[in-house]
């Protein structure tokens, strides 16, 4: 599968699409700047279309932010004037209030606008001014990320209270990240940026529980450090002050990927585990770990399922986690359903020889292309019971996808390459996982490319869970439209946007996945 090519076409397509004139309602013609789904966690609550509706003067535009509900019914038009260099990067909904992140590229500023349940803008906004260094760093990370996979998108709702933002940051010479809390109850903001004891920090937002924001942090001693410390950081939601900072070493070294509050009211961290002296950035994981944790950071219980002992009952897997024909698993998501069952969603990848890289090396010696490439393989769903015992594992076939790596990648560890495929090459087919409110159902979505007798083109695929039953489905995304794009919809649905160049028409309709 030539996914990169497909992705490239799609992305290019969308840029062109958004550059096209689009007729909306009574507006003569407008140029769409951005559009996206508005989510509350994974739940799609609506959509926005942001466009320049008029030019006011040389430096100023009139913008219209058209907001639709999740049935694509118009809710509100927000019209305002601002610099011609403004765009909307993100949005989020916390069950009551809505936040938009506006970016002024020229002025290097972020503005977070908050709208209440009454549809009115709150009498305050939150601002952040970027330094040149920060802007450059964000341009290679957050701002470089595609809309499609939302790799770096980081505005998380805190029920009815506010929003957490997680964004890469530069502090002097340190490469770090910045956590911001924006209250939607009243104007209140705090910022946390780790800089102590390291030169480089990577932070993942895990979740919010009992007034504490949970983060997984990797701390690198230097920019070239390959063996980071891992710790869980707890921040007070009201003040932003550190509540705890605990290493992720228990019986094993743990690398949590997400936090869920279970039916028993306890918070659990899910993730992969390593030997106690293992290297999270380099070593292959030994399996999956589950920690019960309280708001003080105290670990109440630990449970581990290893590839060697537990998963091997269901998969042909080596002790290092390599699965036959599948390769290694990149963990995309872990979630628990309402009956307590836990599912881990992963995707396979493996290193293979690159004919292009080898040929280039023979011919030019310094080609810039690695002699290895990554083959992204199938999807996998691992099932655990409520006591975290492995109960099943199923691989879902899809066409594989090759990614040529940069020269030097031969010396990188497989897990590190997995992260690069995710964050740098944007190479996985996985799109997103959605759950319903009570998590009695979830849908995992991913793209594929099919080439057979009846159909040749992109597909949008789903693995759906509903009350204990799992089904799969796919939509063909190729149509008569000049270009098309698939946005997430309500659980089990997608919004298909199709642009018809000749008719200058943008058609939007939902499709349900079975």
């Amino acid at each position: 599968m030539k996914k990169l090519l497909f992705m490239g076409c799609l992305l290019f397509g969308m840029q062109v699409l958004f550059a096209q004139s689009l007729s909306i309602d009574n507006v003569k013609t407008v140029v769409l700047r951005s559009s996206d789904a508005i989510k509350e966690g994974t739940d799609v609550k609506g959509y926005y279309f942001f466009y320049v509706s008029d030019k006011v003067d040389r430096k100023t535009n009139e913008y219209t932010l058209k907001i639709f509900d999740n049935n694509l019914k118009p809710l509100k038009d927000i019209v305002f004037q601002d610099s011609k260099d403004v765009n909307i990067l993100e949005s989020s909904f916390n069950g009551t209030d809505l936040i938009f992140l506006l970016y002024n590229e020229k002025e290097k500023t972020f503005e977070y606008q908050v709208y209440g349940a009454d549809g009115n803008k709150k009498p305050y906004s939150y601002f952040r001014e970027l330094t040149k260094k920060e802007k450059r760093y964000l341009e290679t990370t957050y701002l470089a990320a595609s809309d499609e996979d939302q790799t770096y998108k980081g505005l998380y709702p805190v029920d009815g209270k506010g929003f957490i933002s997680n964004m890469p940051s530069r502090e002097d010479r340190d490469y770090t990240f910045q956590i911001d809390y924006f209250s939607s109850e009243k104007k209140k903001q705090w910022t946390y940026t780790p800089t102590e004891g390291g030169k480089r920090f990577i932070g993942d937002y895990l979740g919010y529980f009992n007034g504490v924001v949970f983060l997984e942090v990797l701390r690198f001693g230097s920019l070239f450090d390959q063996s980071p410390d891992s710790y869980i950081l707890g921040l007070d939601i009201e003040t932003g002050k550190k509540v705890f900072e605990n290493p992720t070493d228990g019986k094993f070294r743990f690398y949590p990927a997400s936090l869920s509050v279970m039916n028993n009211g306890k918070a659990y961290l899910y993730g992969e585990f390593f030997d106690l002296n293992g290297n999270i950035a380099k070593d292959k994981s030994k399996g999956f770990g589950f920690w019960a944790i309280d708001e003080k950071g105290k670990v109440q219980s630990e449970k581990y399922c290893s590839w060697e002992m537990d998963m091997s009952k269901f998969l042909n897997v080596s002790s290092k986690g390599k699965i036959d024909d599948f390769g290694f698993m990149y963990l995309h998501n872990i979630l628990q359903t309402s009956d307590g069952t836990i599912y881990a969603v992963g995707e396979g990848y493996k290193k293979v020889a690159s004919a292009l890289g080898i040929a280039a090396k023979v011919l030019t010696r310094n080609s810039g292309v690695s002699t290895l490439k990554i083959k992204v393989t199938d999807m996998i769903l691992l099932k655990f019971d409520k006591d975290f015992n492995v109960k099943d594992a199923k691989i879902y076939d899809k066409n594989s996808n090759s990614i040529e790596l940069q020269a030097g990648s031969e010396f990188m560890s497989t897990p590190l390459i997995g992260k690069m495929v995710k964050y740098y090459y944007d190479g996985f087919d996985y799109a997103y996982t959605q759950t319903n409110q009570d998590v009695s159902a979830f849908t995992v979505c991913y793209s594929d490319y099919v080439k057979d007798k009846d159909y040749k083109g992109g597909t949008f695929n789903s693995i759906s869970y509903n009350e204990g039953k799992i089904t799969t489905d796919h939509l063909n995304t190729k149509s008569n439209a000049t270009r098309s794009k698939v946005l997430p919809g309500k659980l089990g649905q997608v919004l298909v946007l199709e642009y018809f160049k000749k008719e200058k028409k943008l058609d939007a309709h939902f499709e349900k996945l079975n």
Partner: protein
Amino acid sequence: MNSSPPNRLRLKSVILCLLVIHAISGIAQSPASYVFWKDDENLRRKYYDESLRKNSLFISNAPKQYAKDYKEIYDHQFDEIGDFWNSKRAVTSPAVNDYLQSIVKKIIDANPVLQNTDARIVFTRDDWPNAVSLGDGSIAINGGLFIFLNNEAELAFVICHELSHYYLDHTNKEIKKIVDLYNSEEFTTEVKRISKQQYGARTQFDELMKKMAFGSRRHSRENEAEADKQAFLFLKNTGYDCNGIISCLQLLNNIDDSSIYKPFIPEATFNFTDYPFKKKWTEKESVLFGRLITDETSPLSIHEKDSLKTHPDCAMRISLLRDSIKKISAGKKFLFDENFFNQLKQDFFPEMTEQQFRDDNVARNLYYSLLMLQNGSYTSLAIYSVARDLNILFQRQKDHKLGHMEKETRTYAADYNLLLRMIDRWRLDEIASINYYFCRQYEKQMGGYISFKEEQAKAVKNFTLVQNK
């Protein structure tokens, strides 16, 4: 119709229903199934041909200046009218049409100025409460309005009102105004000026359009008041009770909030012993702008919104006529057949329901069928329709063709939104299971209903398919 706005008696959105007990027509199968009205196709074709001739006449008689604009508008107008006569929406069934024509004839006979009218007045199977004069003599009275009327006098007023629009030539006058305005030097100069603006062009253009829209709506409201007045003059000569005007306008004022059937209760219909109702099908979720008041969604101010209304407020319309009506001696509420009138009201519901199916609006068809079933009206037809719709929903969902299905909308009735929400949330296996158990629940009752048996067989097949998947 964009270019030649129809003169509506009252355009309101929602659709509602009536209390029905028995079908008017014959009994064909056991258990009793409703037999739909059989339209007179010759009459429909005749009306189409007359409209076509009228279209040619309008075009040939149009002012030579701007002839192209007139042709474009009249052709567009005919597109709509032609589609209407070609559809099954118009009711030309002899019994129903004869009844309507007897009232029309009464009005025409009583008013010499109408003797030579070529108006073609029909009932329609359209479910929204409205009546419309299409401008060329074609006049439609929707079943969705008729079912709310209380007597012939109210119906006669509706006919008089639409006839008045035609008699006063409102549509053609409006067309002329629009053509003249769009070609006026003032307008073209202003458009040219705006299009050359580098900044603020859209805002200025919107302002210009808004100004025009206000002007157009003001004329429409004036036309409505004029049509009311003329309708009164027509009605008072017929022997019908002119108080029908007041009761009809009062009825229209509240029609959006009216319902004759009890609202649909999902858990009453889709709850089976072996497959209980699931709350998550209808549970409310958090929504964006949860406290947003509907009226505030429009960027228009209250004054602006008021200015955009095509019809004057019903209370205002009543006050304009009340004194004149008082002076008229009492007429009758019925001059022809009260029983037939009431039977017709009942029978319109299954007719409108089936029209939704013909128009491929499966959700509406399902909704009306569920209302009939829940209220014990035309039960066999309703059960068959529900089974048929659920099978269609299953197939479309399986084929990923449910994408264009209606979605919840704030202006819809709450119980219809609930059904739309369920359809939206049902998974394939749930639709199959619901229909399987639904058909099983009614199989004894529907013993001799062949079409139902066919739908049940499909439901069983779909259920087996998802069970084995």
